[in-house]
């Protein structure tokens, strides 16, 4: 390659290091900042914190509103992830294996929620669920989150299915397995990394979703990001930093699992 690392002069090399470092810092610093603040003693989120404390964590865990919101978030994200993956699996097979007119358009259609501004989806869903009288229900949360999570699951599963050598499945069929048996015994185990990371991305898409959730929420049922947003509008408390930290930690955990799954799949 023309721009290989070794062929660069030291000036270029170091300016590359500096730029990359700056971009990384730009992306990561706010996250580190907020984690520090969650342990700071200042009511007003002063940085650097004058002293360290766990009292905001105690407040967070002793407040049923925060805990309920966190549990709701988890429930919604889990259900969204499972259902989106279950829908994405047959859809991916149809989009990869199918030979029908308009297949490519259908693929674009399935990924459309990634292109459309979320606020438009949110308003549309809000008006639908309002007329149905379903706002503020778990059903509304899950259905609306599936819409934004589905493209992530589909893209991930489609990619692994495209890389999968179909003749392995055919080999199972000629060995006596029905097409469905072959898919369950051979294809699924081999594209499992794609399915798992699709499910994880769907989980994340739901876990940090805020725009739609704000519309779907009711005082009784809200997700963690919604609770943060509404709290933020009333007063600025370090408990928000605690909630942020909780969000970040789970997201980080999911990302680590996803990269681990991907690494494992490369070993085959």
């Amino acid at each position, binding site marked *: 390659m023309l721009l290989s690392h070794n062929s660069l002069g030291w000036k270029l090399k170091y300016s590359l290091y500096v730029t990359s470092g700056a971009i990384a810092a730009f992306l990561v610093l706010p996250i580190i900042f907020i984690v520090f603040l969650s342990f700071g003693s200042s009511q007003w989120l002063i940085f650097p914190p004058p002293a360290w404390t766990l009292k905001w964590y105690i407040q967070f865990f002793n407040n049923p509103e925060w805990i309920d919101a966190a549990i709701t978030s988890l429930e919604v994200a889990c259900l969204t992830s499972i259902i989106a993956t279950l829908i994405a699996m047959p859809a991916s097979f149809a989009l990869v294996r199918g030979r029908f007119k308009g297949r490519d358009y259908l693929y674009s259609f399935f990924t459309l929620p990634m292109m459309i501004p979320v606020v438009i989806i949110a308003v549309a869903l809000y008006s639908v669920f309002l007329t149905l009288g379903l706002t503020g229900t778990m059903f509304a949360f899950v259905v609306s989150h599936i819409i934004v999570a589905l493209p992530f699951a589909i893209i991930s599963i489609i990619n692994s299915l495209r890389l999968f050598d179909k003749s*392995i499945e*055919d*080999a199972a069929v000629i*060995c006596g397995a029905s097409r469905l048996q072959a898919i369950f015994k051979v294809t699924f185990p081999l594209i499992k990394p794609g399915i798992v990371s699709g499910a994880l991305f769907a989980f994340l898409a739901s876990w940090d979703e805020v725009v739609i959730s704000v519309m779907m929420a009711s005082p009784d049922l809200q997700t963690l990001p919604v609770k943060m947003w509404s709290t933020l509008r009333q007063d600025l408390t370090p408990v928000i930093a605690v909630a942020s930290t909780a969000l970040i930690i789970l997201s980080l955990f999911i990302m680590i699992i996803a990269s681990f799954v991907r690494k494992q799949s490369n070993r085959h």
Partner: protein
Amino acid sequence: MGLQTNTMTQSPLVCLRELNKEYGNFTAVDHINLDIRKGEFLTFLGSSGSGKSTTLSMIAGFETPTSGEILLNDTSLINIPSHKRGIGMVFQHYSLFPHMSVRDNIGFPLDIRKVEKGERDKKVDEILNLVQLGAFADRRPSMLSGGQKQRVAIARALVYEPEILLMDEPLGALDKKLREDLQDELRLLHKRLGITIVYVTHDQDEAMRLSERIAIFKEGGIVGLGTGKDLYRKPPNAFVASFLGNSNFLKVNVTGPTSAQLDKHHIILDDLHEMPINQQALLMIRPENLQVLTHQQAENEVLLDGFNQISGTVNESVFLGESLTCSITTPSGHQLISKNIATEQPDLEPGSTVFIRWNSKHSSLYSKWEQSDINKNASQ
């Protein structure tokens, strides 16, 4: 039908009848008729797009024929799905299950058939011994060599005792040396097991090395069927002659039932043909059947009965170790290639006049041909 009639009359194992496959306007397989005998090693040989793989896919059940019939033991396979046909198949890249051990790969067909565990293990062990892979039973396919993978694939395809084994260019991706080793291994395995094998390849050497019979595919049809020896020595048409090995083609004028005119030379033919006098025909002689003699040799050695002789000028002779090839132009401008054992051949200087002899038994005559059939003529 009892068991006795089965052993007495050797009815074909698989029959293809007017088998046809069309994709839109493109005819991939064009009304093929073929009988596959029990226990034989039959190879479908052809270039890509000739219909050989599509035909194999239809036997396996991965493609549905547009029309025609496939019979296995006189029973139609058309409406039987792949997994119920009881056919064994080895794929191009072996297509082993990477997430299973060698033992589980081979046991898979038995597990699907819900064979009882004790019997399953016994059968797997038997076939592991047969293909000499006992020591590798617990390995994953990714830890095997190409040859071992081939044996696992064959073992997996044979463990449920199919009546026929299909192989779709299983050696295509390997280098020449390994390929030849595996070909030998496969031929020995076929001899030992006596199973019917249908093998697809585009490599004529591979077809020759492996098969008892070869079916040569061209544009969706079978244009030659027979043993490699017969197809090579007496090609049924100019395409087969040109496709299988190298060949010299000469346009001649038929002058009698066993004679023809090549420019000013009178040529003896061995074939008794029924072509009308004065029709143009194509004479084919293999390069190794052309003897090249110097002026002196030609004077010393009498022209034997049944032999033809014409003169020519040497363009170039190339020493290839075991053989010597020589390109020669006849006075009327025909280009000929000869190939002879190098030790028996004197040096032939470019520009020198030589005499070319061939036994009329070793030539073939065709009344119909297309220019595209013979364009590959001695290109190697």
